[in-house]
């Protein structure tokens, strides 16, 4: 078992959000998590990554046999976890390449591998960036996400993922704010990492991302727990019928169905 979440409960500002979530992700699997606004999708992502303010009040998360919740955020990353942020953070004054090399070397050091020097790093990063249609400016001249468009920020997340080669990637609404061309580029970057061993948890409102990153399992999160699990067909069904089936059990069952806005709320 790669990732094993058991009866996870978490709160934010004293408000319970996750209420007994159970989920298993095996090596090589892609799990999609869908669900109405407020159902706890982003909270799950942040709890897994270890963000301050997301307080775990019950349950457990085991990751490759370790207690994930006992690790600091940087230790989780070094153990192979990666969160692609819904809103990547702009950091003025820190060069994008400097940042990514520091991250890569921190992880290599943890694994007992030699650090990568600046020249070798640039060769590696250039190669990883090519597939994402990002040129050298994004690495050498720009600060971390500073002044990036929405699409550039998401590409930069996938670039980091490709350089760091995580065992488990959690993609938090990576499709938000992307037009269809950018979405294709991002999906291509993610798919290139699929090798039968690496696992993915793809959080999304929209079926269209799942046309491009095809999941093995689809879950519907509602009221802080998994309300339904199915195959790829479940996403197609949700696209047609929305979350009405959740009825009173869904905390936000009356939220508008995402697919009613085919352009995507943040499309540029």
């Amino acid at each position, binding site marked *: 078992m790669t990732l094993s979440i058991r009866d996870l409960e978490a709160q934010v500002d004293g408000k319970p959000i996750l209420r007994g979530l159970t989920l298993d992700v095996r090596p090589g699997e892609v799990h999609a998590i869908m669900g109405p606004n407020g159902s706890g999708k982003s909270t799950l992502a942040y709890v897994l990554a270890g963000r301050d303010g997301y307080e775990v009040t019950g349950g457990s998360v085991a990751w490759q046999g370790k207690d994930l919740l006992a690790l600091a955020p940087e230790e989780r990353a070094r153990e192979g976890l990666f969160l692609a942020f819904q809103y990547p953070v702009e*950091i*003025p004054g820190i060069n994008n390449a400097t940042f990514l090399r520091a991250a890569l070397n*921190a992880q290599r050091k943890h694994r007992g591998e030699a650090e990568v020097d600046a020249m070798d790093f640039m060769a590696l990063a250039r190669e990883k960036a090519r597939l994402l249609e990002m040129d050298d400016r994004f690495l050498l001249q720009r600060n971390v996400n500073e002044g990036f468009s929405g699409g550039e920020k998401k590409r930069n997340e996938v670039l980091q993922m490709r350089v760091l080669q995580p065992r488990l990637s959690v993609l938090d609404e990576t499709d938000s704010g992307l037009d269809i061309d950018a979405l294709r580029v991002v999906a291509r970057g993610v798919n290139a990492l699929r090798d039968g061993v690496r696992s993915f948890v793809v959080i999304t409102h929209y079926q269209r991302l799942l046309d491009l990153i095809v999941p093995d399992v689809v879950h519907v999160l509602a009221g802080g727990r998994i309300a339904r699990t199915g195959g790829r067909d479940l996403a197609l069904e949700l696209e047609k019928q929305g979350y009405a089936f959740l009825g009173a059990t869904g905390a936000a069952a009356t939220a508008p169905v995402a697919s009613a806005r085919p352009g995507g709320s943040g499309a540029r």
Partner: protein
Amino acid sequence: MSPAAVPAPAPAPAAPRSGWRTAFERHEAPRAPWLDGLRRAAMEHFLAEGFPTPRHEDWLSTSLAALEEARFGPTPLAPAPVGCAAIDPVLRALPRSGRVVFVDGRLHEGLSAPLPDGVRVTPLDQALASRREVLERLLMLPPEEQAHPFVRLGTAFLGQGVLVEVAPGATLDGPLVLQHVRTKDVGPLALHPRTVVLAGERSRATLFESWVGLGSGHDLTNALTQVEAAPGARLEHVRVQREGYGTVHVGLLKARVERDAAFHAVVLSFGAALARMETDIALVGPGADASLDALYVLDGERRADLVSRVAHLVPHATSRQRVKGVLDGASRGAFTGRVRVAPGALKTDARQGSHNLLLSPRALVESRPQLEIDADDVKCSHGATVGRLDATALFYLRSRGIAEAQARQLLVHAFAAEVLSHLPEGAARGALDQVLAGGLHEAISPGRAP
């Protein structure tokens, strides 16, 4: 002029500041009798008035009580041997720069390195004879500028220092470094070096003044630098202060910027128990331009007090001041920025900003902008911010595997290094970036000894 060997008198019921009188009487006066009256008058004024207390408006955050009855010894005749490049990150970063080295207050010819073409450096005692006409004008400061306790002390204790002359039209092919080293264990020492910089018409030069202290004694540095930028000159003047943590460092800079000249002052202040860095700039010709980019870094109980006074005396001059503070522990910092626009100084463009990063809930910072505008049709602005490290950015870095301590350092460096962003690309800027990274790491690295 009898140096050194007289033992200090036994402490007796003494007049206030008697230690200062004793030191004055033993001071090695320069061989310039024409200065004696000026020096003696400055001393008498100082003895009568002493140091300002924190009640004085300009000295709110500067407590000098410990200096009143201090007894400083004479400067050693034979300076201790010291490897200047090894201890000074400025020289490490600029290994081939021309340099003039002072050790414990004395010019050390042996350690100095050849100067670039186009600049002449004369020890002050020689210059007082050979360039009297220039120095007389500069040393006889107007009364309102004399009335500063450290200017008075600097005048009374005139002796060490240099005259730096950049030839008209010359472009120096590298920076010139004036390095001041304090060695360990020389006893409490007060140094009053004077630096006079004359940048000739249309000359181009970068000048560093680097202060390094190796001990932790209760010393005083009282440095006064006077700059004249002739018409069309461009001068970058960088002060890097890394004194020992027991030292009081007072660094005064007075610059006069003439028509179409550009003067860029940079201050990086890392060391000292108390650092007071003043920058006075007078824009005296149309088209004159002045910039100040300053950074101070504090931890523990240390203090820094930055003061700037920019006087727009003529129309069509511009000034920019950007001051940043990084404060950890229970440190305290203050910035007082005064901009004066004289009557008739139309089309003045003067901006000022002060931005501070607090790394500890016990650190304190004050910003006191003071705009005095007596002309119409001018642009003047100021802004100040105080903030903490951005928790979201910190999490983002950590979520990629970067340790919390390193993530903090990256963010602090990003904040601080912005003060260098207005310098032209080149050797001096590269060197300063190294100096800044090293200084930050030393002053506030999380693993340091308490």
